């Protein structure tokens, strides 16, 4: 067995070991953990609850001493590691022991920062007996003991920890003064206005607050008598708590010759730079220049480290975290994410402030993306804001809706106000009560609740409300859904990492992807997305596995509610001929098609075709597939344009047909509906298409992208105005290819375009700022050249029984069949 040594038994070290054990680490490693404190590991965040008496010490332990034993871990509690000998591969501890390792993890966390203040240290006795820091259980115990028989306390530091300490000490009957050297409380998270409101809230609790107050000395020789400020005043006090921030605890690493800047430098695998067998995790690491003092990033790091060290997933990588905090500080709800004040001239800064009620809200929007938010006193919108911040969701046009629920449709209501019986998912009939019950039954991730209830699995427009309700019902214990950033749920990678791995390892079939990247575990829910991605990436080289396709893609027709299929032949630009119409009519007669319907995409839909008839229907139609069933380019809607219309200024029909001919059947992350319209009257509805082209006077064409008129309604963003149909076709191809390569599975352009930002897309594909254009054009040309009509498969089925009915002989809910000649 390999020897794994972990220095640090705090939240990061212990969590990482848990993740390693989850991945079969017990069989693989003999684990030794060093912890400076003589305890098992505990939740440090809850120490303020212990201080204020809300929680018992015993309740904050995460893993007690028996846990280590049960998992075969040797715990060296109360033993400080002094040095790592990287060459001898041993760690030397203060008790004189030497422990060899094969793999080493450093999780030394951080220590309190104590600013230089006179009189705080006694040259011989260390810290003055009335001076405390606030980091460990021992610190907390000592503060409680001291506070019991003293009357006045000064807390130095008006950040989160200082506020918590002040509030906690107050519970022990101590008169507390909070000193903060900056002008704004919690200045790392709050702007001046919000800080002022927080200050009023804190003062109303009976805590005296002094800002811009720099402490220069602790007064008193044998016992603390007060602190002196830079302005000469003295604040009388019996005890001093220093909560002025933390610094990464890197002493051991630095002493041992490991690379340290502000913290220990690690790569995306959480490996210490230039070391093969030494990893680091948590507050003691610096990753891509960032250090983190919150729990969520630490969890992410622990997972990556565990994947790497156990070899479970060699492609796991940590890319940094976007941090958002939501907490109750000294009894006040605070949520903060991203930046606190606008940085650029064109940053949108929306602020609402109501000091008397202690409410403050602000958001900062750049290029239609949320890049910062501060909420104080009323955090009801935090669910949506955190999601928007994390995932770059589209924002409401009226920015005030980011701050308030303004009534209107249910999706705008806040989770708490909704009635239990209110239907949240209108596609699958899921009520708020259903969601809450599911959460209370133990499902604590948004994705898990959606899977269990089907909520959000229809048109998807309720997803953000579902997420808010889950968060509300879980009361802050909502678990992060690790799969949220994955391209498909069964392969733990986002799209760029997945594409890179597929390309690097030459994975050309769905089962090859599962074997190489998911430990051989196939996952039905991931198959469709992988088929689409592999077909886009490999074209003709893709190795088809029929069972991985959705039924629509297995039989090239759209399954309907009664298990029959609908057939939509291609009708480029909505233009047809008498001959085609005659053939369609004959087919409808011959196969007794129960309904013939003109679709919203200007084509003719034959509904109610039996699966076994599909090949003959296609043969008799003798027209190419219209792709009404696929995640692909479906149709290009047109108006008559200049040919017949009195107003038309451009030949939209010809251009629409050209676009449809070129990009027919093109695989994509979600369906793509296009349109070309001959004048701004917009009869073809081009402003609300995935890509819409509008002819304008002067022979020019406007190209809009990211429009929608389905479950979401969104006017597309103007991508470019060009002079010729050729340029339209070039930019269309380039945009579609960029979308194919970068969008998430099932992410329509109305979500994709705002997520990336129209300016970014324009600069990449119109101005070619990063030199991507030639590659995009080339790969699109290859995809176009590889086109084959799937309906040709009718003549030679791909697998045995491809078109065999799966319909039961039992009666099904049957679609009401209309009279053939409506009266």
């Amino acid at each position, binding site marked *: 067995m390999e020897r794994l040594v972990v220095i640090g038994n705090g939240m990061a070290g212990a969590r990482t070991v848990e993740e390693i054990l989850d991945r079969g680490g017990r069989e693989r490693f003999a684990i030794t953990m060093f912890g400076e404190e003589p305890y098992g590991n505990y939740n440090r965040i809850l120490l303020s609850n212990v201080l204020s008496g809300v929680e018992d010490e015993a309740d904050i332990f995460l893993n007690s001493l028996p846990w280590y034993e049960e998992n075969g871990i040797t715990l060296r509690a109360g033993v400080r590691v002094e040095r790592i000998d990287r060459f001898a591969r041993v760690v030397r501890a203060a008790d004189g022991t030497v422990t060899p390792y094969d793999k080493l993890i450093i999780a030394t966390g951080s220590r309190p920062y104590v600013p230089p203040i006179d009189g705080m240290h006694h040259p011989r006795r260390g810290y003055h007996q009335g001076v405390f820091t606030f980091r460990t259980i021992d610190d907390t115990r000592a503060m409680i003991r001291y506070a019991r028989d003293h009357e006045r306390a000064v807390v130095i530091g008006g950040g989160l920890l200082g506020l918590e300490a002040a509030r906690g000490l107050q519970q022990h009957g101590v008169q507390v003064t909070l000193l903060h050297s900056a002008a704004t409380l919690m200045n790392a998270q709050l702007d001046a206005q919000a800080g002022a409101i927080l200050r009023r809230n804190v003062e109303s609790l009976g805590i005296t607050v002094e800002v811009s107050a720099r402490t220069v000395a602790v007064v008193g020789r044998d016992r603390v008598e007060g602190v002196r400020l830079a302005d000469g005043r003295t604040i009388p006090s019996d005890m001093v708590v220093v909560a002025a921030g933390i610094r990464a605890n890197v002493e051991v690493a630095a002493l041992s010759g490991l690379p340290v800047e502000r913290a220990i430098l690690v790569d995306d695998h959480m490996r210490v730079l230039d070391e093969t067998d030494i990893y680091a995790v948590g507050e003691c690491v610096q990753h891509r220049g960032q250090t983190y003092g919150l729990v969520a990033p630490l969890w992410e790091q622990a997972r990556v480290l565990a994947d790497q060290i156990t070899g479970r997933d060699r492609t796991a990588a940590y890319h940094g975290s976007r941090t958002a905090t939501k907490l109750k500080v000294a009894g006040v709800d605070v949520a903060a994410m991203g930046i606190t004040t606008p940085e650029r001239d064109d940053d949108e800064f929306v602020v609402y402030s109501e000091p008397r009620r202690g409410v403050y809200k602000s958001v900062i929007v750049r290029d239609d993306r949320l890049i910062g938010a501060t909420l104080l006193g009323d955090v009801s919108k935090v669910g949506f804001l955190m999601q928007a911040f994390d995932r770059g969701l589209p924002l409401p046009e009226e920015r005030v809706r980011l701050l308030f629920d303004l009534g209107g449709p249910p999706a705008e209501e806040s989770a708490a106000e909704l009635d239990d019986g209110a239907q949240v998912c209108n596609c699958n009939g899921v009520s708020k009560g259903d969601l809450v019950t599911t959460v209370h039954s133990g499902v604590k991730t948004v994705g898990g609740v959606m899977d269990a209830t089907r909520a959000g699995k229809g048109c998807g427009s309720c997803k953000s409300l579902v997420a808010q309700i889950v968060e509300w019902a879980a009361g802050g214990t909502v678990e992060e859904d690790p799969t949220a950033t994955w391209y498909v749920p069964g392969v733990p990678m986002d799209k760029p990492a997945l594409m890179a791995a597929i390309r690097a390892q030459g994975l050309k079939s769905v089962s090859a992807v599962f074997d190489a990247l998911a430990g051989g575990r*196939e996952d039905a829910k991931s198959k469709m997305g992988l088929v689409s991605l592999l077909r886009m990436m490999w074209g003709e080289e893709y190795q088809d596995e029929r*069972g991985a396709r*959705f*039924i629509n893609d297995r039989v090239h027709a759209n399954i309907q*509610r009664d*298990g029959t299929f609908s057939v939509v032949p291609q009708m480029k630009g909505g233009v047809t001929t008498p001959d085609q119409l005659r053939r369609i009519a004959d087919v409808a007669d011959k196969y007794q098609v129960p309904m013939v319907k003109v679709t919203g995409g200007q084509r003719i839909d034959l509904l109610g075709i039996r699966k076994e008839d599909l090949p003959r229907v296609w043969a008799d139609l003798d027209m190419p597939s219209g792709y009404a069933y696929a995640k692909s380019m479906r149709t290009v809607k047109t108006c008559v344009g200049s040919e017949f219309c009195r107003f038309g200024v451009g030949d939209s029909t010809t251009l629409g047909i050209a676009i449809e001919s070129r990009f027919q059947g093109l695989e994509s992350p979600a369906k793509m509906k296009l349109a070309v319209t001959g004048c701004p009257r917009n009869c073809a509805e081009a402003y609300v298409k995935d890509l819409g082209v509008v002819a304008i006077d002067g022979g020019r064409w406007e190209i809009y992208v990211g429009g929608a008129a389905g479950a979401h309604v969104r006017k597309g963003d103007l991508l470019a105005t060009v002079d010729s149909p050729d340029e339209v076709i070039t930019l269309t191809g380039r945009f579609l290819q960029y979308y194919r390569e970068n969008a998430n599975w099932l992410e329509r352009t109305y979500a994709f375009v705002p997520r990336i930002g129209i300016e970014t897309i324009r600069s990449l594909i119109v101005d070619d700022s990063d030199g991507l254009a030639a590659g995009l054009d080339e790969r699109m040309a290859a995809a176009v050249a590889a086109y084959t009509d799937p309906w040709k498969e009718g003549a030679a089925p791909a697998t045995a*029984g491809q078109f065999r009915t*799966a319909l039961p*002989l039992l009666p099904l*809910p049957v679609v009401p069949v209309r009279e053939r000649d409506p009266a």
Partner: protein
Amino acid sequence: MTAHLVEFRVGPAADLPVGEGRAYAAGATMVAVFRLRDGSLRAVSAVCPHAGGPIADGIADSAVVICPMHQHVFDLATGCSKTGQPPLAVYPVRVDDEGELVVGLPD
């Protein structure tokens, strides 16, 4: 429980492609049979209890099948729904010496 089974030969096993499902009539009962990627067979009732969807047209992996109609998920070994629907029935299935699929139904 398995004492009284009636076996039905429903069709040649060779016509059931790996990774896919097909529907068969076993007497008056419709059964969806899947050949998983490891070659093993599973048989469940062919009609989704939610809205009558054709289970044999679903996507399967080694553990579950997803109905194509509304994406309800069923465990192929137990028939239990993972999405809150009533369960599918599960039937024993094997290939006999002549290469025919044989499904067992309770008497």
